[in-house]
């Protein structure tokens, strides 16, 4: 910042915002003083109140999402066909260290987006068999949420999936 801007900045800093009117402070005082006893207070005044039903709802939703995720992953693994004779691509899932604080996080969403699908042509398998190699490119996104303080972690991973499909040629 050049000197004249610095000078102007310093001049602006010397100006003091107008004092808050006393009647306004009194008004806030009255409003805070008139705070209702806990029994009479509306129970679900705000979502920032951790006892609120909204948080309960989010907790339930997070739990349901986590269960749905586990069930979906289990189902996919259960139904996955035996791999064809091709180099297997294994996405090494990192095994996160789980200190006490990390246990507070629960998975809430998992999604994947297919953004590119390319036929990479013919490949030769063992035994001179022909096959076509198809590369699918995904972005996987996983979200965990800490229900105690509403912090969240989003993990976005690019993933290439290579499928080798046996091809048979019929000259007719």
């Amino acid at each position: 910042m050049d000197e004249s801007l610095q000078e102007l900045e310093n001049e602006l800093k010397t100006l003091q915002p107008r004092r808050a009117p006393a009647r306004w402070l009194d008004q806030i005082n009255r409003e805070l003083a008139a705070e209702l006893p806990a029994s009479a207070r509306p129970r679900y005044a705000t979502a920032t109140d951790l006892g609120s039903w909204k948080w309960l709802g989010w907790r339930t939703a997070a739990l349901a999402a986590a269960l749905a995720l586990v069930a979906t992953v289990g189902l996919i693994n259960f139904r996955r066909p035996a791999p064809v004779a091709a180099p297997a691509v294994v996405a090494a899932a990192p095994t996160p260290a789980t200190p006490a604080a990390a246990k507070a996080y629960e998975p809430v969403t998992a999604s994947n987006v297919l953004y590119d699908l390319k036929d990479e042509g013919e490949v030769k398998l063992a035994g001179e068999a022909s096959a076509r190699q198809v590369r699918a490119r995904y972005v996987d996104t996983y979200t965990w949420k800490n229900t105690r303080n509403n912090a969240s972690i989003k993990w976005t991973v690019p993933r290439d999936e290579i499928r080798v499909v046996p091809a048979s040629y019929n000259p007719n």
Partner: protein
Amino acid sequence: MEATHDQGTWKHWLEAHGPKLLLCARQWTRSLADAEDVVQEAFVRYWRHQRHLPGDPQALLITSIRRAALDHARRHARRTAREEKADGGLEERDCTFEAQPGEDADRRNEIESALQRLPAVQREVLVLKIWNELTFEQIGEALEIPANTAASRYRYALAALRKELKPACHG
């Protein structure tokens, strides 16, 4: 800031920080009365429900004030449009800064007018940086813009002010 966490000391904290918060709210409201309503609403909500949350209370309050101001503007949009039609769109112009002994009142008025002529997006960043002493990161969070954008708006605002005030101050 820590004072806000102790019951009964909010008044001292608000006496010290209230003027800055009001000035900040004034950037997003049509009148000082609206700014007072908005800061009151945000402060009472903060004091009742959010004062135990971690982080800088002033930054949290400014975010809360901005949201309250946007809600207030939405709630009163119809009334505002009707009033503008009736009074030709005149806004209440109130004194933003405190008069101080021995100061040049003309200069203060000149700065206030120049501030009013700044684009709103530049003025809000300037107010948050100069009088609320937030960092560009905190300003970015409060306004939901990248910190770099906040920094460049700040520089544009200062440059525009310098241009406006040049004959009086830097000529």
